[in-house]
């Protein structure tokens, strides 16, 4: 593996190496660069379209699978369909994420369409980090779509991180949860320059005892802009909570469009949203400990996105 590709991979998965006992499928410029199956995790390429099927056995407990995707140069558009079949009782961490590098004037794009089918009482922690790099003028574009189908008692956790680097992103996440199924989505975004980020969450809580928690923390700096759209439907005796906290700096713009729909008398849905600049008293407190205003800002942003 070339050094630049290796460093892109390390940044996406936030590790020096993929652990020896983990399954993986590394996708680079639309092709499978490397793959490994394990006893409980089988990865097979799709026959009808680009992408892979990942089967996780119910025997898998606290196991990991890595499926990073890399676009290493300008002028390439990657489109991939990945389906995850998680058997009942499985407990797995999926480290995904995407790195796009622009080294010319054409755009580098990645479109990843992921579907998760969680069996009863299965647990998935899905980590997805977006990274944009390179000195080219072409846009770095990442548009992920995620669908989650949670059988009774299943638990899906999604953590997405995009800190600088990506010029344009449109993230669409949908989930349908049955009895006692739970989903938690934690999103962190920081945009700068003229970047644009759109996030859309749509959750159907169809089962009694099902629950959803959407947490978005975002920072829009310079001339960047962001749009947060959430749509939570309580169709049973369920609980849903979404919160969107955004900090705007410079000429940054953030819009939040939360919707909650209760279609059942026992649906309990809450939405909280706050958008604003860094609070003056937070800056003053840290400055009173000896930090400069700039250092105080950095501390506050780092904590906010932690």
């Amino acid at each position: 593996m070339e050094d630049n590709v290796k460093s892109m991979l390390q940044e996406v998965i936030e590790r020096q190496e993929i652990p020896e006992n983990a399954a993986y499928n590394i996708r680079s410029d639309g092709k499978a660069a490397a793959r490994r199956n394990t006893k409980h995790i089988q990865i097979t390429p799709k026959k009808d379209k680009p992408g892979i099927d990942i089967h996780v056995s119910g025997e898998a407990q606290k196991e990991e699978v890595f499926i990073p995707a890399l676009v290493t140069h300008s002028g390439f558009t990657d489109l991939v369909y990945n389906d995850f079949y998680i058997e009942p009782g499985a407990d797995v961490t999926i480290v995904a994420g995407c790195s796009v590098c622009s080294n010319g004037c054409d755009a580098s794009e990645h479109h990843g369409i992921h579907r998760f089918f969680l069996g009863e009482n299965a647990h998935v922690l899905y980590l997805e980090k977006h990274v944009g790099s390179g000195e080219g003028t072409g846009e770095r574009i990442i548009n992920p779509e995620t669908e989650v189908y949670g059988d009774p008692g299943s638990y899906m956790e999604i953590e997405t991180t995009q800190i600088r680097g990506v010029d344009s992103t449109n993230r669409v996440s949908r989930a349908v949860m049955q009895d006692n199924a739970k989903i938690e989505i934690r999103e962190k975004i920081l945009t700068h320059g003229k970047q644009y980020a759109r996030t859309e969450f749509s959750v159907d809580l169809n089962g009694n005892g099902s629950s959803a928690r959407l947490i978005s923390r975002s920072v829009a700096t310079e001339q960047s802009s962001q749009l947060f759209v959430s749509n939570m439907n309580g169709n049973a005796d369920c609980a849903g909570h979404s919160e969107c906290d955004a900090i705007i700096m410079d000429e940054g713009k953030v819009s939040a469009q939360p919707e909650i729909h209760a279609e059942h008398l026992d649906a309990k849905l809450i939405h909280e949203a706050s958008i604003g600049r860094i609070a003056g008293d937070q800056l003053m407190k840290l400055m009173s400990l000896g930090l400069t205003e700039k250092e105080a800002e950095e501390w506050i942003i780092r904590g906010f996105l932690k």
Partner: protein
Amino acid sequence: MLELQNICFSAGDHEGILKNVSFTVPDNRFVVITGPNGGGKSTIARIIAGLQTPDSGRILFNGEDITGLSITERARMGISYAFQQPVRFKGITVRDLIELASGEKLDRDHACKYLVEVGLCAANYIDREVNESLSGGEIKRIEIAVALARKSALSIFDEPEAGIDLWSFRNLIGVFEHLQDQLHGSILIISHQERILNIADEIIVLANGSIRTMGPREEVLPHLLKEESQAFCPRETN
């Protein structure tokens, strides 16, 4: 030594919040400012720390005019300020604040020491975020612990008793009694509490933006306590 010379401050339509306020806080002295609500006490504290700028007058710290200096510059010169209403953050922990205050990375035991001093079970708090989950009393104690960690030449506490129930505050009195031994500097406390007044070297009574009286505790306190009707210094009932 801190010296305020003819400090005046107005805010919008509210003229005369401070009217020609002058006083000094000598080195290694424990000075308490007391007086009725709305009298300008907190404004004085904020002006000394640099959070607000006076309309006129001068502030000297160790002989240097600091009136035009920023909050950061004053902090680095050795002025610390504990807020009356402590600020909450997302993602910043108690340990982060203590380390920022002390200016260095601390081992866990060292960082915890400051929390123990203000009566908190350190293990339960050191890694907690300084966010909305903390009660008013908890965050107030943390604010005091952070001020202790600064070990400044001048430590300002704005109503340390605010938000802490009377019973807990009695335990905190010990912290303030030993403060000078630890800090080796001057202490300026805004307070209504008789127990705090009792350990002051000097007391300044501020009312309606002006100093009504000031002097050694032995002279000022007896007058305050005689004036039972004065709302600004309630006596304790024990």
